[in-house]
């Protein structure tokens, strides 16, 4: 295996991984901040570096529908989206998972309307948590590249679709240096796609998307739910293969001193990088703080996530989305994780960075220091103007 250092934005890194995958079909509809993915890929295609059939659809609903059709016909098929585009696909999301199609869909997380906003938060993909898609959240361009390759392999091992989420602009548009692997090793790692059925095989005709009334529906849906129970083992297996191919493990989460710390910060995606500097700084002052950055978010592996939280006395969950009238999803899942613990840690839910509002290291430090010293937090919303 050979690695090459490249300077790519997160979006370009995903496009590079997709180029190496060379799927049969890529349905495209442009939406910010996912655009670097399809733009780069269209360039690869124009330069003859891939032989993908590119379908320029008239909407995201059509893009995912085209990909569903292509995937049901036994091909590797991908699309990418964000924000309103993902919401416009909503109807087709559960079709992809219900038909057990291992579609890979990068999502460059962006706020949702109204008011209209093109910048990063996680409200788009978080609103689609229960549609039967696996979700992974990537910290940087390197992880976005790795998880696109890994996600494809994982999806095809459990026959479930996967969203590979990156932070819009912060990751999708910022140039980073990353290691990419040689084409041959990637080809070997991803292997051949073995479809479970083929819509276009006229020798063995199938009915895809048939009606199932009350006497059958529940069993067919449960089969899809049960597939999520297989993800954990397949994730580990795929990680082992990834390690053999590229010398790197893919974990369920990043445990940055979390399992040995009394105060644990939990945050997704690119904010993890900024938080680590603060964790380092506070640890230098002898404070017992760590970071838990979930990567695999659907399915949420409660038993796995309990491991790095065993020592925690205080947990702070920072999220780039809100659960209006309730709490945001990561907080709820962390609460469920520690539900049966005898000595439950105190747990805080904080919301930050909606619509791309910057979070500063000072903000994270202030929150950590307030919680450590037991001071009441000014607001649940970090950086809100009051």
């Amino acid at each position, binding site marked *: 295996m050979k690695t090459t250092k490249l300077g790519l934005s997160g979006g370009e890194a995903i496009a590079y991984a997709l180029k190496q995958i060379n799927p049969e079909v890529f349905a495209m509809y442009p939406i910010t901040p996912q655009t670097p993915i399809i733009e780069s890929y269209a360039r690869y295609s124009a330069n003859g570096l891939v032989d993908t059939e590119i379908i320029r659809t008239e909407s995201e609903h059509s893009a995912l529908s085209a990909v569903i059709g292509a995937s049901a016909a036994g091909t590797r098929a991908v699309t990418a989206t964000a924000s309103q585009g993902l919401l416009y696909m909503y109807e087709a999301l559960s079709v992809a998972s*219900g*038909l*057990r*199609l291992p579609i890979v869909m990068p999502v460059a997380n962006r706020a949702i309307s109204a008011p209209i906003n093109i910048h990063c938060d996680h409200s788009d993909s978080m609103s689609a948590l229960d549609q039967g898609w696996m979700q992974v959240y990537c910290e940087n361009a390197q992880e976005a590249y790795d998880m696109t390759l890994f996600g494809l392999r994982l999806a095809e091992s459990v*026959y479930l679709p996967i969203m590979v989420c990156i932070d819009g602009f912060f990751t999708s548009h910022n140039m980073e240096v990353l290691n990419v692997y040689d084409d041959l090793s990637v080809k070997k790692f991803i292997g051949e796609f073995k479809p*479970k*059925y083929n819509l276009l095989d006229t020798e*063995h*005709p*199938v*009915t*895809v*998307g*048939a*009606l*199932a*009334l009350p*006497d*059958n529906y529940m*069993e*067919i849906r449960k*089969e*899809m739910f049960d597939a999520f129970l297989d993800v954990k083992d397949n994730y580990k297996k795929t990680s082992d293969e990834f390690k053999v191919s590229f010398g790197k493990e893919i974990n369920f989460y990043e445990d940055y001193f979390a399992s040995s710390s009394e105060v644990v910060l939990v945050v997704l995606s690119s904010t993890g990088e900024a938080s680590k500097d603060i964790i380092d700084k506070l640890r230098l002052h002898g404070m017992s703080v760590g970071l838990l950055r979930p990567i695999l978010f659907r399915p949420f592996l409660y038993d796995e996530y309990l491991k790095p939280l065993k020592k925690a006395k205080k947990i702070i969950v920072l999220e780039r989305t809100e659960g209006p009238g309730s709490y945001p999803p990561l907080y709820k899942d962390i609460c469920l994780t520690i539900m049966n613990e005898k000595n439950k840690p105190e747990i805080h839910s904080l919301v930050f960075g909606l619509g791309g509002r910057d979070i500063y290291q000072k903000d994270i430090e202030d929150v950590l220091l307030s919680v450590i010293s037991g001071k009441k937090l000014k607001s649940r919303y970090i950086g809100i103007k009051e």
Partner: protein
Amino acid sequence: MTEKTKHNLGGVLPGGTSLVNKTGTWRSERPVWDSKKCIHCMLCFNACPEQCILAEKNKDGNIRRKETNLDYCKGCGICAEICPIKCIKIVKE
């Protein structure tokens, strides 16, 4: 579906399984065809949205209309409407 079928991954079924579901039971009206009056113009054959009008070639090679397949006919009445000599009547089921 009234018949219990063992399902495949994603609820995918073999081709042609819609035959199992006899949708004619949804009908509240049915077409009655007068075979004596019929001129076998095949307009109803082409118009039927459910392909419920059956046909065959006779010895001379002419296409002849046959009985309506009431297993799947929903009584929409398009055949009666399009019939140029009105030899199809719609009656209450």
